[in-house]
């Protein structure tokens, strides 16, 4: 941009432009239904009078306007295809395109949920096959594919645990979670009618066994742990932890958001967990879609399996498939059978990789994280200095203390370098946290480029702190007035009347 005259930007349209409502004109059309070939009905009569008087003020645009609008919007977005996305806890791995094609096959996308069973055998086979694979990865035999996301899976599992205790006549009111837990964990606990008790972490970043022992009593229904945890550490005391939980008559729940570290290496079911949710939109490569849809299947022990929500696709001895409702099912947690389009993608991923491939995924994810950790450790504080799993947490506290450059500034500055920032300010127990998860799909060259950017920013923070503090500079918009947004919420366009 050197030598650029002052007026170079005149006329240039950057950042958000019009809303789709502000385009088009009364007659613009994109697609319309064919001409009506049956008699019109009198709507007021047909609907018993419940008719709308004024047309809904939706946009009126042509296809070219739609195509350009979303082309422009897309150009302002950053996805995995735009560059490295080391967003800790989110496992932003590459989304293979063949999976996208698979989910769009008419034989899946065109299925109605209430078709005759004989006409959906391929779908049930796919679902059963995925469930079997997830059971094998988790070491937990009971699987429901219904939950629409991780948090939904957490709730589903906790409800099963509640039903399990209830059936045993146990009135337990508390669920323990560590202080490193993701926000969905306590929120789920509350939604499931339990009280949250927080257990602190020990110096090694694991659950503090002493604190756990103290908190565990006959009122505890379950302990929810993320393992590897949100510090990216495999809890060294995990066997002891689950043993204690069971000893107290409680069940051990594993938040499987971090499963990408341990596939084929350690199975939640093998280390004492009774239930687990899996984020297919993390470990199993289904795309995040700008926020969803994902899928959060739940895997449970044989004891908990009867409580799972139905219907569950099962393989019948004669080689066909059908839906079954578990004997003591908690009931449904949503309509129909789950986010099937997401399940297809995950299924394709499983069949592409197989057991050996999944283990390689975890190995590389862990190696790449450790590589970044080693290369960045001198430039940023490393609160937990040990071998990490698929992610690790740095702290920007040195930069904040010495140069007034906060983790937020570092994150925003990374945007200028073409990287999506890590997860920031989480887990809560690390000051100025930067949680970095490269995933196995990043090349060494990209990892090195990320290191270079992080080092450059650390140097900038020391030499020219105002640069990161003012960042980003090159994005479609710059830092936003978030406080203003919350103070005077403008949540929708209002058409003029």
């Amino acid at each position: 941009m050197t030598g650029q005259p002052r007026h170079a930007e005149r006329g240039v349209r950057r950042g958000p432009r019009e809303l789709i409502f502000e385009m088009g004109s009364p007659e613009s059309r994109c697609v319309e239904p064919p001409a009506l070939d049956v008699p019109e009905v009198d709507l007021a009569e047909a609907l018993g009078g419940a008719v709308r008087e004024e047309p809904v003020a939706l946009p009126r645009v042509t296809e070219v306007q739609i195509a350009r609008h979303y082309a422009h919007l897309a150009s302002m977005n950053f996805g995995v295809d735009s560059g490295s996305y080391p967003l800790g806890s989110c496992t932003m791995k590459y989304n293979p395109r063949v999976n996208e094609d698979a989910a769009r096959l008419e034989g899946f996308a065109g299925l109605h949920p209430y078709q005759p069973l004989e006409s959906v055998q391929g779908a049930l086979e796919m679902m059963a096959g995925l469930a079997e694979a997830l059971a094998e990865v988790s070491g937990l035999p009971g699987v429901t594919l219904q939950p629409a996301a991780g948090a939904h899976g957490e709730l589903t599992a906790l409800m099963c645990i509640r039903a399990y205790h209830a059936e045993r006549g146990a009135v337990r009111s508390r669920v323990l979670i560590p202080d490193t837990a993701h926000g969905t964990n306590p929120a789920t606990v509350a939604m499931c009618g339990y009280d949250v008790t927080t257990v602190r972490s020990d110096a090694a970043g694991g659950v503090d066994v002493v604190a756990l022992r103290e908190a565990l009593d006959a009122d505890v229904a379950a302990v929810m742990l993320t393992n590897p945890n949100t510090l990216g550490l495999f809890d060294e005391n995990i066997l002891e932890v689950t043993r204690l939980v069971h000893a107290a008559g409680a069940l051990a729940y594993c938040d499987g958001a971090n499963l990408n570290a341990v596939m084929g290496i350690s199975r939640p079911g093998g280390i004492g967990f009774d239930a687990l949710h899996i984020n297919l939109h993390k470990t199993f490569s289904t795309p995040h879609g700008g926020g969803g849809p994902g899928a959060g299947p739940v895997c449970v022990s044989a004891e908990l399996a009867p409580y799972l929500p139905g219907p569950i696709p099962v393989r019948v001895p004669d080689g066909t498939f059908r839906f079954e409702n578990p004997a003591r099912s908690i009931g449904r947690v949503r309509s129909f059978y789950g986010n099937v389009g997401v399940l297809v993608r995950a299924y394709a991923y499983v069949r592409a990789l197989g057991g050996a491939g999944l283990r390689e995924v975890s190995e590389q994810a862990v190696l790449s994280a450790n590589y970044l950790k080693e290369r960045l450790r001198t430039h940023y504080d490393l609160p937990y200095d040990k071998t990490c799993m698929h992610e690790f947490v740095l702290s920007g506290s040195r930069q904040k203390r010495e140069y007034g450059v906060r983790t937020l500034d570092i994150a925003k500055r990374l945007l200028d370098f073409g990287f999506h920032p890590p997860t920031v300010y989480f887990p809560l127990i690390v000051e100025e946290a930067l949680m970095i998860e490269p995933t196995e799909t990043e090349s060494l060259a990209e990892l090195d480029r990320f290191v270079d950017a992080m080092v450059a920013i650390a140097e900038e923070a020391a030499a020219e702190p105002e640069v990161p503090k003012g960042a980003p500079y090159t994005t479609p918009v710059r830092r936003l007035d978030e406080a203003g947004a919350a103070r005077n919420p403008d949540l929708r366009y209002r058409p003029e009347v």
Partner: protein
Amino acid sequence: MRHISVTCEQREAMLRAVGCESVEELFADIPRDARFDRELAIEGGLAEMELVAHVRGLAGANTPAGGMVSFAGAGCYDHYVPAIVDHVLRKPEFFTAYTPYQPEVSQGTLQAMYEYQSMMALLTGMDVSNASLYDGATALVEAAMMAVRITRRRQVVCAGTVHPEWQSTLLTYAAAGNFDVAFVPSRGGAVAFDSEDVTSVLREGATAALLVSSPNVLGNVEDVQRAASLAHETGALLVVAANPLLLAVMASPGDQGADIVVGEGQPLGNAMSFGGPGFGFFACREEYLRHVPGRLVGRTVDMDGNPAFVLTLSTREQHIRREKATSNICSNQALCALAAAVYLSAVGRDGLAATARACIAKAHYLREALLATGRFRAPWDSAFAHEFGLIYDGDVTAMRDALFAQGFLAGVPLSMLGPLDRTGIDPGVADSIVLFAVTEKRSRAEIDEFAARVAAL
């Protein structure tokens, strides 16, 4: 390995850089007994070409309703999805992005969601809409729980004509102990709001919300206005579950007095996909804004004063408020909501209304045609939109199988939806009721042909 960009040689170099001799060492912190000691027994390792053949084989083992003359609805509808919708959804900048937590590089998702919220607010007649929930059933539950939080009352009253699967979902959540549910049976295909049925359960000071679906699961229109006054008289909120496509021509629940409007968004530009993913929509009156579950996108400015969009009011959400959050939801169904926004732009103001009118007219035409066959009887005489129930005098399954073999999906037997005991429909009759939904995809010729095949059974 496929999808792993690091090579063996580089792997060695990386191991050296982290001071390990082998990959095994990286897992040294995992206690020996916590290790998995064999290979995962999962078939795979298919080359992409084999994988494609394999998944095509599975897809080919299904007979999708989308390719048939289908009259199946009951919560999932076979509407035409304009070509532009999937072309937008295939843009990697949209589908490979995470939740727009970094607004500076997420204006695409954010503006699209703001526009989505605007459209849903317009359709529902509500002040605000969130950026989507999982599906219609969970959206209904979230509405109930929000009403419980707002009113600080424990009871929700649900019309028995709400989709049985949604009822079941509501009960599952209620079992966690945060609220109770009472059901109101139907009479003649809809709730009789002025009857004892309702007044006996709606309790002043105790009922947090009245939940009504209109059209209800039987396709019939409920008296939402009456429901609103009844609910409001007892200080309860009225939650209406609506079909967003039909809202183009149906009175907006907002105008009829609803406080919260929810529903399943699948009819708007989403494939049926065996029932998911679709999305739940959730809209409400402004005064309840800070109780809303899920994400909200707001319009603001950046530091240069340029317009910009951002996730806002996140102090409601789990990642900030934790156990005090308005919901535990984190990931939602953003891409499906995006499909809805593109769909609504593509069909537009007039096209959506024309589509709704076509569905309704064709449903009425089909009903007449089926009654004329003499094989079906009307269980009630209620106002309906694009779906209706008829009693089949014979073996429903045999009828459906026979027609399926001829390329027709003859609706959905009511009994497939789950237990019907709370609907209030005479159990003897309920099992003989078939629900027929008609979308704009069905031509008159197809309907006539279908009726002829029915008559010939």
